């Protein structure tokens, strides 16, 4: 074996030993950075997402719609005690904040934990407008089913607990967007069932094919023609 080769092998051996020694501390540093980022996200939420509290708050059993533990492709109603306002706008905000943050487990979440509710408006005709931060769009798992479940959970939770909302428009950072995360159409309005209907077991719209078996995905349909610019197409 030549002297040069011996030197190379020796250098490589030293590098390997050095790598093995520094690897654990490197891993710890990466974990620390990840933890710090999470803390920053939490801190941002604490600053931006101020809890909604009003003089008319009363503790009630609210029906929340999160993913079913038995069938993760469907939603199930979970009753939790929440202080809810008599004012429908404040009540809606309280419900949507709880929907984001109070899921019984991470596997039952329908909305990303980093999503913020930026604003909620209610028009006299019963149209609610929920304005979420970009995280709702960026962090909802991409897919028809997952996006549908996210919107369904919002719509059904509002429907079960706020009796004046008839339809809902979802905005992302104040803007109308084409889709939630690449699939589900957000350009229209989603019909909101009144409390009695929303409390019933999940069921598709009356004229839609029924989904049976283990999977019970519920369906939320735009209540009227989508709001995007219209064009004409010859038949």
């Amino acid at each position: 074996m030549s002297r040069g080769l011996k030197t190379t092998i020796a250098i490589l051996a030293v590098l390997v030993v050095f790598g093995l020694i520094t690897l654990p501390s490197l891993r710890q540093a990466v974990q620390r950075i990840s933890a710090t980022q999470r803390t920053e996200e939490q801190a941002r939420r604490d600053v931006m997402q101020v809890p909604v509290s009003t003089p008319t708050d009363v503790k009630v059993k609210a029906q929340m719609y999160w993913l079913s533990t038995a069938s993760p492709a469907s939603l199930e109603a979970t009753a939790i005690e929440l202080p809810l306002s008599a004012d429908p706008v404040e009540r809606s905000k309280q419900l949507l904040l709880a929907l984001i943050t109070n899921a019984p487990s991470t596997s039952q979440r329908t909305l990303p934990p980093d999503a913020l509710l930026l604003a909620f408006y209610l028009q006299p005709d019963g149209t609610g407008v929920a304005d979420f931060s970009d995280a709702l769009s960026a962090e909802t798992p991409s897919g028809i089913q997952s996006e549908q479940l996210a919107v369904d959970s919002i719509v059904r939770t509002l429907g079960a607990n706020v009796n004046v909302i008839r339809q809902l428009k979802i905005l992302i950072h104040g803007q109308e967007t084409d889709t939630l995360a690449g699939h589900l159409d957000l350009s229209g309005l989603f019909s909101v069932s009144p409390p009695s209907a929303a409390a019933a077991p999940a069921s598709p719209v009356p004229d839609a094919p029924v989904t049976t078996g283990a999977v019970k995905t519920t369906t939320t349909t735009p209540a009227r023609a989508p709001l995007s610019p219209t064009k004409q197409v010859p038949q």
Partner: protein
Amino acid sequence: MVVLDPAHGGADQGARGESGLAESDIVLSFARLLRISLEAQGLRVLLTRQANDDPTFDDRSKTANAQRGAVFITLHVSSTGKPGTARVYSLAQDGGPPVYRGTGPSRTVLIRWDRAQQGYLDLSRKLAELIQIQMAQRFRGSAETPTTAAVRQLRTVAAPAVAIEVSSVSLPDRTQLDKMAPVLADGVARAVAAFRLVYEAGVK
């Protein structure tokens, strides 16, 4: 004519798995294989994209709307759901005023581009049913009946149109999805061939 739409593409990779699987790549492979199966059934096939580009929703719809008697199938891979299953979607009724239906004598009626699918909901549902039956037979755990959903791509298609979503990019690698591809292609091709009889009778 069948218009196949491998969803996403270009900078939009669609659903991404932790292992690096990208929806846009997988659906393009699915579409290429499905094209062969459909052509074997005597059907003509057009793809909305042939490579890693990203036409807009409306450009994809335009490809179908420019054909007479077309059928539109958009292909997706989810990031969630039970791996190895497939689900078929047609568009839900939007609650707006009725729209001229796609079959019948009139050829002069104009319909709104953004509601183009509303005249084809029944046919789309029929196509979805036929495909979902094939999927349920081939992929254990798949639903037996299709679902309606507000799928953006379907809204502007003036033809029978469905979305097929396979689960999922969360798999550790492409092996299982690659195994599903020929089975899916065969099932969809059979369903479309069966639907063709119903559809062509209406269009003529």
